């Protein structure tokens, strides 16, 4: 029995006269990879920014189901949405370039670590409670560095890593916040085919670890390969919603985005 993790209800985002997201209603299921696709300017990133709290939606509702109880995301301040369990990555990578990979992952655990510092005083004096918390945080960071195959680069500044590794580090950093829902904005952009393959495997592994994924992606190979469900946007409206097979066969999706003819990879 599938239970929802995120639900948007007639979500609308208006910028002056422009309606970037127009009454979009969809549900992402728990332990699923849900992809959002659509042509450029369809409102995908705007939708993402609403979900992750960077924009406050003009209308509609956003609900995250945490332990079965709905959390109304559209009422929360930006940083509280992250604390509620929504983590995100950015279309143009936003790491802390002057900090090491390990430090990047520790910043992500700020809130858990901060709770153990005793208003900073305990940590300042080196209280054992804080030292234990720090050790646990480093262990978690090392775990995600291992998973993303970055352990050897742990002490290198994030800005010095090659592009593909930066992408992976950003995902690792998002995972260090212990999210319920991981939102990825074009994670495969700029990756070579082999790296895309690795990314797909990583995302499947994250999903199987109990974190649902919401994904914006143009690389149809990745989207069709890993998505359990696909939502298609065009001009701010949802035009289709279903399994990869259903979406691929939908005439409206073909007309708006995938294009006529074969697999659709050409249009991507």
């Amino acid at each position, binding site marked *: 029995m599938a239970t929802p993790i995120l639900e948007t209800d007639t979500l609308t985002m208006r910028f002056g006269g422009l309606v970037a997201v127009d009454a979009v209603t969809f549900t992402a299921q728990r332990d699923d990879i849900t992809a959002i696709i659509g042509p450029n300017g369809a409102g995908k990133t705007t939708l993402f920014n609403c979900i992750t709290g960077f924009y406050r939606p003009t209308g509609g509702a956003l609900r995250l189901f945490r332990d079965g109880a709905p959390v109304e995301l559209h009422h929360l301040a930006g940083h509280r949405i992250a604390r509620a369990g929504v983590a995100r990555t950015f279309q143009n990578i936003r790491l802390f370039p002057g900090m*090491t990979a390990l*430090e990047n992952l520790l910043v992500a655990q700020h809130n858990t670590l901060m709770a153990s510092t005793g208003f900073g005083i305990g940590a300042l004096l080196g209280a054992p409670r804080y030292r234990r918390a720090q050790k646990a945080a480093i262990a978690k960071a090392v775990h995600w560095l291992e998973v993303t195959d970055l352990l050897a680069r742990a002490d290198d500044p994030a800005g010095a890593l090659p592009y593909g590794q930066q992408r992976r580090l950003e995902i690792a950093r998002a995972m260090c916040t212990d999210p319920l829902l991981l939102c990825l904005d074009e994670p495969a952009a700029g990756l070579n085919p082999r790296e895309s393959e690795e990314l797909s495997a990583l995302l499947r592994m994250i999903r199987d670890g109990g974190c649902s994924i919401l994904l914006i992606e143009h690389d149809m190979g990745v989207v069709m390969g890993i998505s359990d469900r696909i939502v298609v946007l065009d001009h701010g409206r949802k035009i289709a919603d279903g399994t990869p097979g259903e979406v691929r066969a939908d005439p409206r999706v073909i007309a708006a985005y995938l294009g006529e003819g074969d697999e659709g990879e050409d249009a991507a």
Partner: protein
Amino acid sequence: MTLRALKDAAITALVALGLFVPLVGLRTDVGPSGELVLRQRWGDVVILVALAFVGRLALLGWRGWRGDPKPASAARTEALRKAGLFVAPVLLGLAVLLPFIPGTGRYELDLGILVLTYVMLGWGLNIVVGLAGLLDLGYVAFYAVGAYSYALLATTFGLSFWICLPLAGLLAAFWGVLLGFPVLRLRGDYLAIVTLAFGEIIRVVLLNWVSLTNGPNGISGIPRPTFFGLTFSMSGEPDTFAGFFGIEPSPVHRVIFLYYLILGLALLTNWVSIRLRRQPLGRAWEALREDEIACRALGINVTTTKLTAFALGAMFAGIAGSFFATRQGFISPESFTFIESAIILAIVVLGGMGSQIGIAIAALVMIGGFEVFRDLDEWRMLVFGGAMVLIMVARPRGLVGHRTPSVVLRERRAIGAEHVAEGHG
């Protein structure tokens, strides 16, 4: 190559000619009967233009001989970090032993106190500017708040220095938060302007609120600090420092005491900033400097993080301010002008934002150097400005531009300046 160099030098000479003809070539003087006469000094112009030509040629020649400048390699960054590890204990040892080094007199100690005050202020401002990346041009306001807090509390209520010291720090921190709130949403240049205005507002209020602050006349008769209740008077009574320890009363005792007091306060600032850097709060400050949007996406409360940086930076300025008040015994708004903020900021920037040892060296060079070049009179500012330009040309990210990671898995390596963000407010 030579032809290009000659052409380049000729263009330089042409620019120099354009500049020097009106600046040097023509001069208005008062004639014998009081009228203005125009004196022409073409000889000087020729000399200056020739100097520009030759100088440019020499510069180009030197550049050609040296080849392309080497980019700062990881090895060089690493060597600098190692050197820093060695320099810091030596400087600290010197600072601790200074009063006992033969030849150290009243003047050297006073200069040491001055330098250490600026070291402490630099380290305090470093929290705001260097770590959190928030450009603060009104830092002296908190210094003033601390100084006036101590002066007023001590002269009005007769509270002792040791009670007033933390109180002054807390009051300054409170004002830091007060300034922080309205400027939270500002970045970069806009933040700089508002903090600059804030610094001026505090000074103007101190100047005009005569009933409280005595306006431009300042507050005098501020009590001097005591050594656990023992005063530093010359009488030699048992309740004075000299009398209690049975030594000859000397005015140097107080100076030495003040020296160690500010050394201790500065080291406290240093200790707190170093410890905080390795903690979630300090890391969040640095993350904020690197990328504020990413911080928000990770659930970091940007508002409180910025406010804590402002509050802590202001607190140390307040403590330094109350030290300043007790040392001088007299304060007036004149001591808290914008130039003070500018000097402290210059120390932080020249030292290398975020680097504790760099800031200490920069404070020593700037404040100490300023005193050493006192003989140069009006040329002093010129030498000073020139030295600053030279440092910024040679090391655009400050003396110590690299960053040391706050936590490591295997080995500690310095992070080159090219990766570290400067912060945009």
